[in-house]
């Protein structure tokens, strides 16, 4: 039961993007196409799950005075692995995500979960927590990027779905579009949350 709760926490109740509003930098910067949002979500998930496991395993060995540098080394190691693997096997995605892959190191979702959960809980619970947060982060990124790609390009995953009659709002795939999409989606999410709470 606790495990299920750990898993579902990140999906909605403490969703990093729509409920906690952390990790905004990649959320706003790379969600201009569905494939980029998905790739960023998966890369972050990989780092989050791996670093949560390691940090949970070594938590008793780390003195609290140097815990932040230790967490950062662990996280940075997995980020570099993700960066190298993307560059070697998915060069196109690596070219688009570019600088944002190394920036996963400072994504507050990851350090936040390390500090708030993995460093205080056993490994199996940390895995479920990280998994839930990863799914929550990825679906939020995917939703924002799908909305932006449909409105800005008329397509989803590069496949045109709105036809030629639709004139795309180019602004939606440019940086301002990130704020517009994020703001409207947040409003919708808050409305849903209010409905759920009053029930």
């Amino acid at each position, binding site marked *: 039961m606790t495990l299920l709760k750990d898993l579902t926490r990140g999906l909605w109740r403490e969703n990093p993007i729509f409920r906690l509003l952390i990790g905004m930098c990649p959320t706003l910067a790379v969600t201009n196409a569905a494939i980029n949002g998905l790739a960023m979500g998966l890369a972050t998930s990989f780092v989050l799950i791996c670093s949560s496991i390691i940090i949970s395993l070594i938590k008793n060995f780390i*003195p609290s*005075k140097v815990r932040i*540098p230790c967490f950062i*080394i662990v996280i940075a*190691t997995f980020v570099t*692995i993700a960066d*190298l693997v993307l560059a*070697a096997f998915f060069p196109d995605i690596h070219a688009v995500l570019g600088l944002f892959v190394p920036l996963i190191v400072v994504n507050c979702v990851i350090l936040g979960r390390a500090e708030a959960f993995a460093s205080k809980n056993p490994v199996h619970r940390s895995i479920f927590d990280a998994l839930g947060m990863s799914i929550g982060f990825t679906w939020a990124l995917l939703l924002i990027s799908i909305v932006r790609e449909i409105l800005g390009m008329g397509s989803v995953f590069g496949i045109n779905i709105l036809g030629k009659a639709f004139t795309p709002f180019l602004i939606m795939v440019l940086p301002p579009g990130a704020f517009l999409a994020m703001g409207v989606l947040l409003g919708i999410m808050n409305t849903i949350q209010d409905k759920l709470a009053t029930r």
Partner: protein
Amino acid sequence: MAKYMRLIVVLVVISIFSGAVLAQTYKITYPNIKQNALKKQEEAIMKVIPGAAKYKDISKDNLKVFKGLDENGNFKGIAFIAEGGGFGGSIKLMVGLNPEEEVLTGMTVLSHLETPGLGARIEEDWFKEQFKGKSIHDKFVAKQDIDAITGATISSNAVGSIIKNTIEKVYQVYGGEF
């Protein structure tokens, strides 16, 4: 003292582990990364030398120069990598040159760290196209013989001077014979 030792030991141990894991990952991914870079380089060379189907590496003295050949082995021109400082960091270009007519045959951006939306527009086609057919004796100065990008005169000028400087170096080293 002992309590500080523990902090140091823990950090050192974690760092060593991290280094070892990364060294291994690098070893596994390096061949692929190198191959991807080579493929990208080949595509760039083909793009800047019209009619080239294959190329030969004739690099020397820190200059990366390639000879473009068509299917029958006829000489089609040379391409060289031009690198230098831009506004935000190093700019790396692939430039095509026809030594017989002494004109550029094309230019493409390999990598840069310019400001997105401003200097990064050096990647746009209209900017790159203007170097095609340009005489190597031109000045390559923005707003004089190069159209500058609005709000990014430094980046535009940097591209011009990087190309100009590298052409001079290539001619110094090779003396016009390729």
